[in-house]
Structures are given as structure tokens and as C-alpha cells.
């Protein structure tokens, strides 16, 4: 098996362990609950043993499992050891953290090299690899902010953000309802639908195509920061003014993409429809719109993120006392950065889910497109 050969990650991890052992203690003297030397040895052992073991010639899966346990065991000990000792970590602490991270890297590398036969295992691996990747971003964030004592205002550790999310669920839920389920969804649907309808209209009526597209271009260049307060004056403080901002933001990408998509069908296919004496609408529905679907889904995906940004930023300019943008702007003023980060986390999650749902629908609808079926033209 190629998976269990000596690797530079494991080698470097061993070197880092050796340097860390030579420069103990891992916490400064001010630490209120210093880590025992037994604990330190355990961390070093959890890193060094799997690193050495991964050199042995056994299967990739076993090697990955040993590396996984070692890396995450060591990381867990390092993070729990810093509790109560925030800001007292010395260099060996970070060396051991880096060594554990290298093991996790090696683990992911071994896992990616595995070519499983069964589809279940393949699906599991496809989820596991990015999960390990993401977990390590949080682990390093947590260990570094607490180990080095990064000021809370500057960057709170993820555990504090998670605690804030857990304690403020009702507020977050109300904000999500206000911003996403009202402003974003309404604005997104109306903006996309009107962009699509205008694109069809411009396609049907040539003078609109020549007149509307340049104006649409100008609308897309409008700065959202400038438009949002005007919309508040026009449509009031409630969610309608935010929806209006979202409509303005999502309209143009849909218009441009649909117009481009309608031109995407080939000459031969259009000639074919002409030989059948097919009328405008038949050609539109049977040929041009299906051919435009990849373009339209592109716009839907772009707009799913644009809509969220638009609604949150628009809430900075006057809003009732609920909404994600409102919360961010007020809590940052009160130095409650953990709440700001909690809103950011919720927005990121909501945005990803939104994008993911659109992408799933796209895969089901444009299954025939070479980019989806991944193969021959």
C-alpha cells in the first residue's frame, strides 16, 4: 500500500515534538492551573506514536484511524489544558498544536488517497474530509485565541460564539425570520422573477432589448449603500424597504444571464425548429429556455448570496428593533462582538443552505448538461 509510507508531515511533527520537549514548560509560570508533566508527555505521545506508526506498512485506513485519534486527542488535551490559563501559552504549546495539525493533514492526505469500492464509504469519505478540514480551522482558532490570550473584542474563540448562539436562540430566530424569511425571500423571488420576465420581454420586443439592457446595466452599478436609505424613505422602516433593495440587487444578474442564455441555443437547433414551423412560444419553451437553464441557475446562485448581503446591509439604515443587520450594527456599538459573530455564523449557515438548495435543484434540472453529468458532449 502506498498510503503508509514515510511522509514529511509526520516527520516534521516528530521534529516539532522534539523541539517542544526541549523547551518545556508549555505554559508560563503565571498559569493558575499549570499542565502536569504527565499531561505534556501524554500530548507528545499522542502525536509521536501515530506519527511513527504511520511509517509502518499497514493499510491506509488503519493508518488514517491512528492519525485521526492522535491528532484530535492531542488537540483536545491542548485546548482543555488551556482552560483557566488563557494567555499563558509558551512556544512549545504552539509547536505541539502545529504538530497535531500536521498529523491531521497527513490523515486527510491518506484518506484522499483511498479509492473505496462501495458508494457508501465513498460518500462518507467525501463528507469526512471537508469536516476534518473545517474542524481544524475551529481548533486552531480556539487554541490560538485562548492560548495567546487574544482580546475578546478582536476575535472571540469559537466556543464563546457557540455559547452565545446557544443562549440567544430566540433573538437569532426572530432576526432570521425578519431578515431572511421576509426581506430576503420576498426580494429574491420578486427580483429574480422580474429579471426573468423582462429578459423574455426584451427578447420578444427588439427595441426593448436595445433600450432596456443599457439601463439595466446602470441599475446594476447603483451603489447599495446609496440606495438603501432612499428605499427606507420610500417604503418605510419595515422589511419592505429591505426587500426593495434585494429586488434591485437581484434583478440585473437575472436579466443579463437570461438574455445570454436565450442566445445560447445553436443555429442548427433553431433551424430545426423552423423546419417544423414552430411558433415563437413553442421554440421558447421547447428549445431556448431549456438551453438557457444553466445560465438562469447561475443567476439564481449568484442572487442567493447577493440577496442576503443586500438585506443585511440595508438594515443598517433604519429598521424596527429586529433583524440581522440591525443586531450586528447595534451589538458592535455595545462591544458585544460575540453576538456579532453569532449573527455572522447564522448568516453564513443560512447563505450556505440557500445556495445548496438552489444548487441541488440545478443538478436535478440540468442533469443533461456536460458540467453536471461530467462527460461527453
Amino acid at each position, binding site marked *: 500500500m502506498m498510503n503508509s509510507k514515510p511522509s514529511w508531515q509526520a516527520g516534521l511533527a516528530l521534529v516539532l515534538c522534539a523541539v517542544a520537549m526541549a523547551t518545556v514548560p508549555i505554559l508560563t509560570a503565571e498559569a493558575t492551573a499549570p499542565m502536569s508533566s504527565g499531561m505534556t508527555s501524554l500530548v507528545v505521545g499522542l502525536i509521536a506514536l501515530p506519527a511513527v506508526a504511520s511509517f509502518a506498512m499497514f493499510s491506509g485506513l488503519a493508518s488514517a484511524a491512528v492519525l485521526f485519534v492522535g491528532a484530535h486527542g492531542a488537540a483536545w488535551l491542548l485546548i482543555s489544558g488551556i482552560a483557566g490559563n488563557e494567555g499563558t501559552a509558551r512556544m512549545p504549546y504552539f509547536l505541539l498544536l502545529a504538530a497535531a495539525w500536521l498529523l491531521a493533514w497527513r490523515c486527510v492526505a491518506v484518506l484522499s488517497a483511498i479509492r473505496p469500492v462501495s458508494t457508501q464509504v465513498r460518500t462518507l469519505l467525501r463528507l469526512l474530509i471537508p469536516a476534518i478540514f473545517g474542524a481544524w480551522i475551529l481548533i486552531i482558532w480556539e487554541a490560538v485565541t485562548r492560548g495567546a490570550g487574544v482580546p475578546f473584542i478582536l476575535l472571540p474563540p469559537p466556543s464563546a460564539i457557540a455559547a452565545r448562539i446557544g443562549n440567544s436562540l430566540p433573538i437569532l430566530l426572530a432576526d432570521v425570520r425578519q431578515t431572511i424569511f421576509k426581506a430576503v425571500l420576498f426580494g429574491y423571488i420578486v427580483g429574480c422573477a422580474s429579471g426573468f420576465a423582462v429578459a423574455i420581454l426584451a427578447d420578444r420586443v427588439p427595441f426593448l432589448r436595445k433600450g432596456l439592457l443599457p439601463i439595466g446595466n446602470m441599475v446594476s452599478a447603483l451603489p447599495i449603500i446609496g440606495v438603501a436609505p432612499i428605499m427606507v424613505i420610500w417604503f418605510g422602516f419595515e422589511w419592505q424597504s429591505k426587500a426593495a433593495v434585494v429586488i434591485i440587487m437581484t434583478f440585473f444578474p437575472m436579466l443579463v444571464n437570461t438574455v445570454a442564455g436565450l442566445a445560447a441555443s445553436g443555429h442548427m437547433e433553431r*433551424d430545426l425548429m423552423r*423546419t*417544423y414551423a*414552430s411558433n415563437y412560444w*413553442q421554440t421558447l419553451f*421547447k428549445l431556448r429556455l431549456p438551453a438557457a*437553464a444553466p445560465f438562469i441557475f447561475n443567476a439564481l446562485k449568484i442572487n442567493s448570496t447577493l440577496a442576503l448581503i443586500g438585506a443585511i446591509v440595508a438594515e443598517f439604515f433604519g429598521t424596527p428593533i429586529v433583524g440581522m443587520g440591525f443586531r450586528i450594527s447595534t451589538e458592535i456599538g455595545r462591544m458585544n462582538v460575540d453576538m456579532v459573530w453569532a449573527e455572522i455564523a447564522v448568516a453564513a449557515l443560512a447563505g450556505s443552505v440557500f445556495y445548496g438548495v438552489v444548487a441541488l435543484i440545478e443538478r436535478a434540472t440540468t442533469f*443533461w448538461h456536460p458540467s453536471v453529468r461530467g*462527460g461527453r458532449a
Partner: protein
Amino acid sequence: MLMTVNQATATSVDQNAVVEARKLGLTFQTNDGPVRALADVDLTINKGEFVSFIGPSGCGKTTFLRVIADLEQPTEGKISINGMTPEQAREARAYGYVFQAAALFPWRTIESNVGLPLEIIGLSKAEQQERIKRTMDLVNLSGFEKKYPWQLSGGMQQRASIARALAFDADLLLMDEPFGALDEIVRDHLNEQLLRLWRQTNKTICFVTHSIPEAVYLSTRIVVMSPRPGRVTDVIESTLPTERPLDIRESPEFLAIAARVRDGLRAGHSYED
């Protein structure tokens, strides 16, 4: 000119004409000035004929086919299809057209690709099913109804596109180098099937090609064309029997016709460029 108008209602011989072109010409306006794609084409194609158009590229053979199909409009002369103008003929769905590529819609299964013209015409679901089945059988594609075009080989895709052109039972079939992109063996096979299909259905076929053996093997009449401007230089009646096994291509009769086509092509070819 008066002749063409009368022909639709006149003698029984004239009623036999499917395509009639008189002094037909077409000039494209391009950025580099006008290009005469067709000039002085006089041709009558009768019902049940298999006519091949052969010539070097740029000789207007595809353009002529496109004029019949009302995909291009002539700038000189007259042309009538079944006694109608090309536009009327197209509106009446008088012909099926097979393009150089299969041009199947990738989001439709093979059967719904074949059924596309039937949907546009507005036939009932039952009628559509019946015709799809019949034409799929005709081109030997039964069993592939639920496949998508990209799951089929190039030869099968082209057969599906022929089935689509046959599905709505037009008497005239226009084929523009349909087998040009296929390899020799697949091409032989499809040529054989096309001949069988033509005998079974008794359709009139106009077939554009640049392969001499293909033209001679398939046709009852071969129209040789030459470029700049595109015009007809020779029309050769085939003396081959209707029943044509593939090895007829080694017979002296076949080779004689092929030689005449080659001579015609050479005579019409200009060596200036």
C-alpha cells in the same frame, strides 16, 4: 415563369414534380461584398426519386437544400415545392430535414426527441406514441427509447435524428451530409439502411454529400455542382437496379457512373485557388 404557376394544376407529369427550380439564384451580402452562392439552377425532382447533390465545398449544394427548406430565401428565379412556395411548404410541414449533426436536445430522451415535431404539430398523445414506435422500429432503435442522446454512439444519434425527420410522415426528406462525421463502417451500414427505408416508404429524398461512392450507391440521379458561383454542371441518371447490395460498388457499372461523376467534378473545378 407562367409555366411554374400552371404546373401544379396542369398535366399528370407535372404533378409528379416535388421540387421545381427555374433560373434559381442566391447572392449573400457579406462584409467582403456580395457572394453568389447559387446561379441559374434549373432542376426538377420527381416524386419517389433519390437525388444526390455532390460537389466541392462552397458549390452551393447545402444552400440549395436550405432554399428548398425555406431556411434561405433565393434572390433570383423561382422555386416551388409540391406546387407551393418554400414558405408555404414549410408551414405545411411538407419535408423532414436531417442536419450534418444529429442536433438532438440533450434534455430529452430519444423517444421524446423523435416526438418533438409531433408535439409541435399538436398530435394526440396516443398518435404520438404510435408514430414514435413506428419510426424507432424503422431506424432499428427500438429498446433505446428511454436513453438520453449523450448515452448513444454518433451513428445511433444520427439514426435518431433520421427517425425524428420521418416521424411526421412528410413525403420529402432533405438530408445535408447526414453521415459526414461518421466512420466508414457505420456509414456503409447507415447507407444500406437508408436505401431500405427509402424503398419501404417511397419518399422523395434529396441528399447532399461530398463522397462519390455514397452518391452513386444511393441515388437514382446525381446532380454534380461546381463553385463560384454555385451551379449545376451535370445531372447523371443512375442505371443501377433498385436492389443494391453493398458489393454492387465493385461492379463495372457502378465504377463507370463513379468515373463520370469524378469527371464532372473535375470539369467544374477551378484550379485558380
